[in-house]
């Protein structure tokens, strides 16, 4: 199995404080991976290590097979959207992207394509300083996708955005995955992670406390194993997940009284709270 990113016992200390405590993860090529955790859990520190912005105190990280301490050769194969967008405020949307076609040595016509894809073509002449937060996010994403990179790092790409803009960004991320890119995203939005990610890892106080496919993680913590039923008359029932309940459900179906039926596996947020006793903020 080929991995886009490999982390072997990554440790990071700042003075006396241990921010990352032996992170071991492997991220497959072409997947969307979500690193979840509350603010201050160490997500951005890990991204900085993986993108070569920070040398870890211990352990080894490989990105596309290259040690992240010497990433110069693979910069063009990476795309990044950081928590601060890093846009040239006085330059237009078009010029912000044109600059990076020059740096990546790719055709300028990609700028138009990227602006159309992110819905910014009409605002191409608008200086970045005049864009709304959602538009700035999209411009930052357009820049991250410009060189059609193999690995894309997205640090909380939808934080502070309205649901419609967040949905547009999710669509763009999925399109990049369809192109074959590996996406590493950090978020504290559990719904986003559940919807987008092939695998998630829950990071708490510098340690990975859970890892797996989102559904699998939730199923793992389904202690109740019950069915929640709502009937058309408004009545709600909680049934054990067994043969007797199946007969009851069958009866309701035959009587056309059944409105909804749900299993009781917890959400990712509930799993995280169970594991750490903390809430996402």
């Amino acid at each position, binding site marked *: 199995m080929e991995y886009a990113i490999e982390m072997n016992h990554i440790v990071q200390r700042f003075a006396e404080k241990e921010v990352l405590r032996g992170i071991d993860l492997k991220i497959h090529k072409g997947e969307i991976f979500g690193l979840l955790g509350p603010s201050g859990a160490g997500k951005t520190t890990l991204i900085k290590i993986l993108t070569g912005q920070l040398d870890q105190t211990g352990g080894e990280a490989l990105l596309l097979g290259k040690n992240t301490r010497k990433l110069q050769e693979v910069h063009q194969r990476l795309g990044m959207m950081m928590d601060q967008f*890093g846009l*040239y405020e006085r330059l237009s949307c078009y010029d912000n992207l044109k600059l990076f076609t020059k740096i990546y040595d790719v055709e300028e016509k990609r700028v138009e394509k990227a602006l159309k894809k992110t819905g910014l073509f009409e605002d191409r002449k608008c200086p970045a300083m005049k864009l709304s937060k959602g538009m700035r996010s999209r411009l930052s994403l357009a820049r991250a996708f410009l060189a059609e990179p193999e690995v894309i790092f997205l640090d909380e790409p939808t934080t502070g955005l309205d649901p419609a803009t967040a949905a547009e960004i999710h669509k763009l991320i999925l399109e990049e995955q369809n192109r074959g890119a590996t996406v590493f995203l950090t978020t504290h939005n559990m719904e986003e992670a559940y919807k987008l990610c092939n695998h998630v890892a829950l990071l708490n106080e510098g340690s990975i406390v859970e890892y797996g496919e989102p559904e699998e993680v939730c199923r793992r913590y389904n202690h109740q194993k019950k069915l929640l039923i709502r009937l058309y008359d408004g009545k709600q029932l909680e049934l054990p997940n067994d043969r007797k309940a199946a007969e009851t459900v069958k009866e309701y179906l035959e009587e056309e009284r059944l409105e909804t039926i749900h299993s009781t596996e917890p959400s990712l947020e509930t799993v995280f709270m169970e594991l750490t006793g903390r809430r996402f903020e």
Partner: protein
Amino acid sequence: MIKHIAAVFWKQIKDTLKNKETLIQFVMFPVMAMIMEKAIKVDGLPSGYFANMFSAMYVGMAPLVSVAAVIAEEKEKNTLRVLMMSGVKPVEYLLGVGSYIWFACIAGALVLGMAGNYRGKGLAVFLGVMAVGILTSLLIGAAIGTLSRNQMMATSLMVPVMLIFAFLPMLANFNETIKKAARFAYSQQVGVLLGQIGTLDRFHVSFENTMVIGMNMIIALLVFRYAYRRSGLA
């Protein structure tokens, strides 16, 4: 490498045209020199007096403030980190920004030289002296920009340095004690060299000129090296 330098150079042209604060640094002294040379005629005042005075101030101010402000702003707004993450090396970035500011300042110096009525060989010598002064100023500005975490810190560092280098040559005309101290500033040496161009046959670069400008450059490089080793460029 050349492509990255050219990209940074292109970005800087685009950005400066929309950045009045930086743009004014390049045009203020040349325009003032042109106005003063045309407007003020005093008997006994040597030709190009105002142009030379403003040129020495220009050397001490425009490149230093511009390069420090550009680097500090890029650090504060995180754009420098984005550039580095895209594969632009620190040396490519510095050469891109530095060469742009150097050329912009040389263009301003050309206007100053024209205002001072220098032509032909005189203008070439004038531009040569200015080029060396601008380069020294760029190194000091780059050191300040690299030392600074943000624009506010850059301003608080650059203002006193800029005031010393920009105004010492002018103040040295009025006070002997200041003149003695000013000898150690590269901008004063630039002013001294510019003052000789009017009588070009007697123009020569002295050991003191070379030593002071050279030492100023070395000190700027050492400060830059310290700042770069401490926290890197981005």
